[in-house]
């Protein structure tokens, strides 16, 4: 009986994105990923006594732009706070962050489309802080090792309102958000490297009753894991409640092997962070000129781009959404469309053959050997009759494997379409001579045999015969 109760799902998402700056948030150390341990570290980011923070102007601009792109109110003045807690990855024993009512951005939203339905998810806050270092288990010893290379890298925190109501929506929210950040150029959005981290807070409750106790999922390193772990956590919570239990507030991680969420054994944490304004930093006050500059620096965002593709290129809304779902794909498409002089054909090739081939290999568009200009050139070869659509598939596959330009492939393999009427007539006569019975039946009114003859002509020409021409010559000869 209780199995029939349906629960309402409430999810809020906390996202951390490392910003793509050259230097760290408060010092001149390189913010680049990698490097040998403790090679991107200075007195400031390792919190040496006497060192002081100097804020990175570009990181601030990036967060302002993001807040704008997320339709936020920009708060000015805005200040930095200290979040105090002890942990070896936090060398000052406080994280410089933004607390309280006036982080850089508040009251925003993004629109998320799941299964054709668009819903608006509120953005609670967007703020700027610094990342922590990394801890490694020391294999030779019962100890851990600390590396501060990532410590002090600018980190943007984006907190959604608890407006998300399904794991799919959570995943789509994360994808949409990541897409916006990548469009803005403020983050590289790499979940695997940890430069884009999503932490959903999940609770369930019966409609008409108060919200349930939340649990938080951490260390989710792909969109797939985000979806799977949210599904599993909701299932777990339902089982606990159906068994008459209560949900404990907890932080959980994803156990890939068993497909379940498991509680993290966690650092002792009194959760009294003793936030206070950082006395080493002065307030940021954004002038109207500054805000106008940042607004001008905003690139075209996915929804605007998609609308323009429909308007200017005559694409379907579906294709436009697919093409703008990632900034590199949109850029690839536009370059190919320009080279082709035929945006619709370019859209078909990108969303069709190219994506299919890439998916089959598990690659994304930034990894293809096919240059956008070459794809455009190939579409032109179809358009001007140099190759047939059928041959084009062969040419494209070769381009995909080797990265060679289409013209070179066509020349090397002799794939130029035969559009010489005399040559076609010769082939047609050869085919009719080889199939006298079928010719007679055609003439007797069995017109569907036309397809058979065209096929035979293509076969005899190794696919190079211009299909239109073959058709008209056949008709003439068979009449």
């Amino acid at each position: 009986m209780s199995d029939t109760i349906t629960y309402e799902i409430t999810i809020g998402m906390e996202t951390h994105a490392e910003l793509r700056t050259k230097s760290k948030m408060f010092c001149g150390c390189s913010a680049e990923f990698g490097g040998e341990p403790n090679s991107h570290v200075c007195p400031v980011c390792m919190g040496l006594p006497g060192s002081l923070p100097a804020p990175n102007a570009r990181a601030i601009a990036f967060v302002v732009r993001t807040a704008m792109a997320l339709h936020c109110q920009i708060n000015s003045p805005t200040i930095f706070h200290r979040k105090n807690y002890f942990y070896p990855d936090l060398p000052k024993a406080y994280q410089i962050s933004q607390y309280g009512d006036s982080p850089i951005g508040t009251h925003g939203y993004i629109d998320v489309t799941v299964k054709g339905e668009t819903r608006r998810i509120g953005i609670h806050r967007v703020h700027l802080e610094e990342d922590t270092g990394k801890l490694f288990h020391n294999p030779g010893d019962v100890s851990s090792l600390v590396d501060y290379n990532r410590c002090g890298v600018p980190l943007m925190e984006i907190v959604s309102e608890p407006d998300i109501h399904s794991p799919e929506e959570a995943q789509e929210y994360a994808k949409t958000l990541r897409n916006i950040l990548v469009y803005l150029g403020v983050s590289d959005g790499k979940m695997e490297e940890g430069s884009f981290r999503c932490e959903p807070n999940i609770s369930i409750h019966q409609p008409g009753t108060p919200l349930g106790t939340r649990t938080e999922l951490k260390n989710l390193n792909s969109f797939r894991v985000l979806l799977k772990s949210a599904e599993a956590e909701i299932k777990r919570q339902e089982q606990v409640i159906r068994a008459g239990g209560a949900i404990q507030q907890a932080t959980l991680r994803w156990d890939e092997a068993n497909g379940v969420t498991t509680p993290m054994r966690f650092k002792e944490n009194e959760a009294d962070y003793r936030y206070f304004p950082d006395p080493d930093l002065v307030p940021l006050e954004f002038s109207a000129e500054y805000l106008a500059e940042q607004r001008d620096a905003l690139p075209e965002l996915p929804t605007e781009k998609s609308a323009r593709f429909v308007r200017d290129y005559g694409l379907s809304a579906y294709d436009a959404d697919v093409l703008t779902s990632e900034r590199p794909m949109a850029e690839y498409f536009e370059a190919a469309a320009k080279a082709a002089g035929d945006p619709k054909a370019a859209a078909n090739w990108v969303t069709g053959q190219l994506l299919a081939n890439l998916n089959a290999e598990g690659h994304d568009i930034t990894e293809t050997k096919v240059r956008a200009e070459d794809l455009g050139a190939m579409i032109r070869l179809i358009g001007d009759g140099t190759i047939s659509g059928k041959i084009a598939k062969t040419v494209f596959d070769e381009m995909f494997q080797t990265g060679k330009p289409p013209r070179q492939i066509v020349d090397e393999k002799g794939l130029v379409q035969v559009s010489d009427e005399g040559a076609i007539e010769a082939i047609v006569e050869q085919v009719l001579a080889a199939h006298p019975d079928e010719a007679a039946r055609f003439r007797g009114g069995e017109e569907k045999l036309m397809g058979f003859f065209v096929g035979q002509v293509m076969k005899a020409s190794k696919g190079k015969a211009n299909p239109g021409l073959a058709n008209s010559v056949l008709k003439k000869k068979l009449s």
Partner: protein
Amino acid sequence: MPILTPDDVRKIARLGRLQLTEDEVARFAVQLDSILDHFAELQAVDTEGVEPTAHSVGAKNVTREDVARPSLTPEEVVSNAPRAECNMFVVPQIVET
């Protein structure tokens, strides 16, 4: 009624990661309570609508261009460490999974 009990003192010490002896707990409880008692006169000041002063300087928007500069060498970074291995700092094992 004391403002601070020995239990409060223990809790605060834990939050500030200070191990105190029972003697220290007792002494601090008395001292801190008397100090806070001196401070209590502040509560009588009318501060309705008064902006807090976090800083006496009025400066704003002090930022730095995003330019990468040389860091210390890893050897310099760990040169003062009580314990280091492989140019990383060694701490007691952290179990967190």
